[in-house]
């Protein structure tokens, strides 16, 4: 059974349809990358999955169980299964690095502080931020903030991690430190949904690549298939453009 099934999903911004007939399965441990031009609906799909934009039609199933985004209880269940890392990090500006990572497990899950902090420190050390526990987000570089944001997402031990253009706001020099962190998660067998413009990286880590355009899934397949032998003309055009430089 797939860990995540998306069936005929549709979403609107107001009256404007931004996602239509999205069908996608994600197996446990898979790394699915969403690629496509700006405005194609990649980030929107992640926002819909997290319940930040409620879908207007279709289904999402996690481990076979259909989830209703209009039910507050089920929305909570969805959000404890999935965690998202945002393009702009979205760290809580009023909290230290450690508090950013521990606040949800302590305040939302009600787990004991000591235990949560020990785990958070291990996570922060893993992403190379163990020396900055007492720093505030505005004292860190973008790459450092993004690694803290990844640790924060992991602190709730989600089954699936969604990465929304996590390197898009970073200086080129800082991109690799974040990508290395993602590679580490991939090596741990974490199921991930990645929206990225780093095509070399997408090609390297993805078990499945999904090409989107205009709110639709145009084509999906292995990285090799999408990048080397795309079936659809639109995919060929996109891949041709981005691989030329």
């Amino acid at each position: 059974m797939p860990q995540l099934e998306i069936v005929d999903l549709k979403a609107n911004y107001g009256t404007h349809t931004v996602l239509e007939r999205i069908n996608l399965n994600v197996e446990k441990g898979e790394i699915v990358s969403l690629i496509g031009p700006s405005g194609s609906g990649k980030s929107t799909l992640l926002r819909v999955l997290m319940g930040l934009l409620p879908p207007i039609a279709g289904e999402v199933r996690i481990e076979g169980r259909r989830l209703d985004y209009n039910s507050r209880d089920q929305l909570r269940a969805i959000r404890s299964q999935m965690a998202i890392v945002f393009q702009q990090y979205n760290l809580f500006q009023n909290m230290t690095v450690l508090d950013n990572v521990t606040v949800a497990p302590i305040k939302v899950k009600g787990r004991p502080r000591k235990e949560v902090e020990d785990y958070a420190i291990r996570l922060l050390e893993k992403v190379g931020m163990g020396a900055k526990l007492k720093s505030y987000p505005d004292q860190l570089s973008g790459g450092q903030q993004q690694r803290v944001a990844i640790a924060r997402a992991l602190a709730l031990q989600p089954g699936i991690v969604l990465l929304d253009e996590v390197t898009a706001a970073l200086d080129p020099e800082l991109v690799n430190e974040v990508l290395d962190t993602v590679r580490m998660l991939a090596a741990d067998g974490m199921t991930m949904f990645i929206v990225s413009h780093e095509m070399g990286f997408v090609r390297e880590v993805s078990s499945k690549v999904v090409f989107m355009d205009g709110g639709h899934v145009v084509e999906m397949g292995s990285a090799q298939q999408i990048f080397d032998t795309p079936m659809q003309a639109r995919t060929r055009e996109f891949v041709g453009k981005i691989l030329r430089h």
Partner: protein
Amino acid sequence: MLEQIIEELPRFFSYYNLLFFAKALGVTFALSAIGCVVGFTLGFTLAAVRLTKRPVAAPLRVAVTLFVELFRRIPFLVTLMLVFFIFQALNADLSMFTVALISVCVIATAFIAEIVRSGLESVHQNQWDAAATLNFSYWQTLRLVIVPQAWKIILPPVFGFFVLFIKDTALASQIGVVELAFAGKTMNNKGFSAALVYGTVLALYFALSYPLARFGKFLETRLAPTRDR
């Protein structure tokens, strides 16, 4: 003139006059302090209600918006008369002080609700998104994430308002509440020179509002510290 003032001094600072001023100061202080505390508490609550997005709270949001927009636009004196006549129509036998107190609370609530609302809205939407995806409730998001970041936007105008507000409580004299401005007028009518009387009134208003402004500064440094990068 100075000679006249010096000549008046012993009579002016007689026991009964001091008592009269002290009582008046107490009334102004009570109106200001209760108005500030109630206004801050209710204003904060109304602002938080106004920001909820839940459909069930829609009628409440409309009511809050109406209250806030209405009472920010009505002059204080008119609000005072309004409260006075409403309670009279209801045959409620309230003291003038109570009428004034209700009025100042209504006004402070409306103004502070608006200041707090704009402060809370100044915090970036991405902070709400992050909190939502981590399963924070609305109140947890406000308490743990939004309000701590909004303090530095909220506090300066709130304390600015408080200072204006203390002065505005003088309008309670219009319905016969013996507060500082009323006391000043009475003493002046008794024949004491205006310079002496209103000089004293000025000093007393200053004594009320200056510590308040200092307290505001103190809160700003405590709740909204600036960090070295």
